[in-house]
């Protein structure tokens, strides 16, 4: 990480730590948009973190951009930071104007696709994408659609979509976005040859992996802290060997999730061509399950309350592991590659990652 990236990361960490309070998280669950916090994030230029300086962005490298998402994950930041970063990255890649304000991307589920046709009256985009993060809040919706071998970016305003609200366990918006629109040339542009919808899903998966690793790191800290504070039978519960062994298991999964996020972040530049992204997402997803279970076990009943802030992280972990491709999806992808490599090729495949 170079000096500029370090400054961006430190400033962002401080901003999140200062502003993202339990009160703000509860308000976000109630549907209140944290406008001031979003404004501060915009002021720092974070929505353009993955856009090169020549295209009007901040020009962090992908690994540093993922680090920002990781830091945000640790604070459960209830804002579409990763989504807006991705939206702008794809707008820039297609040469379209960047989004001002919060933005999102579609599709995000591996099986969802839009259809795009060139009609006499313009471009016709139609289809439904499920579980779109902040679909209702985003001012710009960046849709990827393939027409034959060519993938296009379509830039939509929120008045051009219909939203059926839904949410994940952390009450983050995960809406169905329904599009039936005819669009002018200015709103549609091709991506470079070789890019496709899978790239969006893969890059989203890499950023979710980063967020998961960040949240897991914080859950580990909170749980160790709690184990050292909470006294039963005259001593801190962290002094009991059974609790220590559970926390050691948690720390192992936290280490794996962190390594998984590093792998995925380094894979970002290869987009869907990177096997490391799927491997990372699946490994971190598995860790998310184990870590949440142990965290709640160690926290006892207090951690099961709405009052305690553990759930802001664990509800996100339970949700994020399913988003942008779950473990089954990504494990199957890598398994297919392994089977294709065959008995003689499987080690070279692993050693190249």
């Amino acid at each position, binding site marked *: 990480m170079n000096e500029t990236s370090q400054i961006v990361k430190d400033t962002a960490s401080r901003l999140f730590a200062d502003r993202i309070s339990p009160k703000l998280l509860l308000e976000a669950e109630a549907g209140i948009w944290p406008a001031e916090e979003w404004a501060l994030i915009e002021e720092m230029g974070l929505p353009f973190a993955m856009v090169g300086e020549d295209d009007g962005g901040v020009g962090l490298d992908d690994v540093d951009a993922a680090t920002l998402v990781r830091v945000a994950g640790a604070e459960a930041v209830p804002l579409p930071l990763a989504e807006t970063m991705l939206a702008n990255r794809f707008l820039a890649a297609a040469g379209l104007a960047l989004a001002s304000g919060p933005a999102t991307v579609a599709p995000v589920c591996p099986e969802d696709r839009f259809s795009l046709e060139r009609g006499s009256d313009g471009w016709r985009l139609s289809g439904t994408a499920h579980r779109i993060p902040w679909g209702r809040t985003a001012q710009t919706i960046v849709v990827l659609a393939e027409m034959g071998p060519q993938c296009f970016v379509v830039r939509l305003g929120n008045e051009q979509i219909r939203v059926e609200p839904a949410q994940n366990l952390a009450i983050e918006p995960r809406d169905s976005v329904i599009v039936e629109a005819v669009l002018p040339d200015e709103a549609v542009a091709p991506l470079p040859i070789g890019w496709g919808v899978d790239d969006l899903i893969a890059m989203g998966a890499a950023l979710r992996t980063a967020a998961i690793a960040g949240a897991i790191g914080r859950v580990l800290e909170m749980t160790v802290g709690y184990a050292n504070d909470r006294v039963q039978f005259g001593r801190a519960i962290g002094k009991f060997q059974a609790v220590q062994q559970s926390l050691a298991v948690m720390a*192992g999964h936290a*280490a794996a999730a962190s390594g998984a996020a*590093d792998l995925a972040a380094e894979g970002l530049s290869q987009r869907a061509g990177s096997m490391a992204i799927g491997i990372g997402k699946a*490994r971190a997803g598995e860790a998310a399950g184990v870590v949440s279970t142990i965290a709640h076990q160690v926290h006892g009943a207090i951690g099961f309350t709405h009052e305690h802030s553990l759930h802001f992280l664990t509800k996100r972990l339970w949700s994020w592991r399913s988003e942008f491709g779950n473990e089954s999806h990504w494990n199957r992808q890598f398994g297919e*590659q392994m*089977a294709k490599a065959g008995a003689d090729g*499987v080690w070279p495949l692993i050693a190249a*990652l």
Partner: protein
Amino acid sequence: MQDFSFPAPPTAPDTAELRAEVRDFLATELADYPAAKRIRSWSGFDADFSRKLGQRGWIGMTWPKEYGGHERSAIERYVVLEELLAAGAPVAAHWIADRQSGPLLLKVGTEEQKRSILPRIAAGEYFFCIGMSEPDSGSDLAAVRTRAVPVEGGWQVNGTKLWTTYAHHAHAMILYCRTGSADDRHGGTSQFLVDLTLPGITIRPIADLSGARHFNEVVFEDVILPHSALIGPEGNGWAQVMSELAYERSGPERFLSTFVLLVELVRAISGQSSSDREVEALGRLGGHLVVLRRLSRSVAGMLQNGSNPALQAAVVKDLGAIVEQEIPEIVQQLLATEPDLRSSDSLSAVLGYAILNAPAFSLRGGTREILRGIIARGLGLR
């Protein structure tokens, strides 16, 4: 809470050639070496093979040239190790000497010990065993009872070491024993370089649950060691043995012990129309190995920088043993093949070996519970 981070592993753009060289060598040397033997992994003993590796310069790779080493980087050494393990090469003969006995001597040995021993280890001609465990001292290593007392001309040793892997083939042992008061659990211990041909040493093999003979009981009866056998200062044994364990726990052998079975699983799955369930399970295991490999290479980088990654090594070994044990478990869940050590079918024989050896993966080199205790200490809980 200690720093648990795993920095990015050192990049080594120039290892491709070395990797290719090792692969070529293994393709030739192991052309007729069957999977049923490859699955022995780093428990496979072949002195001739070790000598060939020595000739190639692949033992003692990172050591100074003046002691027979090759002054290569830790990451280059890592490349050689992981290629050997992935191929299931029989590396047991020199493995312990290269991994921990040599590095220990290099760090705290006398000039004479270094000059007389290290070049022979690097040549693949001088093999070591680990003399730590005893009948009443397993996880509680500081409870060792074997004792060396100063006598005219050196030290006299009495006691029993147990589970000593390949003591019956090794030339020497690094003996961890008591030299001071039994009350001084840590300060009263030292390490010695023991020539296993000395009179008074009896090595008795112990069969494991499959009947195989790799570990032993080693009895010392009035064995006289010269003064020059002491390694490091007297009373420094505990600190030394702990640093030795960092080497013992950090390598790729801590997650690749059943890799050869994974290869056989790939062979079984890719040969036929495979089910989604099989492919998914395969991808999960492969993904776990990729992540472990990254963490493990990070530890190799930290060792190279001179930092002490004992905590990270414990994490990798704990996670690694889980995956090593899951591989046979999942193969048995997925495939109808029945495990049979003596089967002519590779998959069946390899699976049989993996199942019968899996219990040891979370015992040898520090049990699962002990590793988790170390991690808990790192978390600031103890």
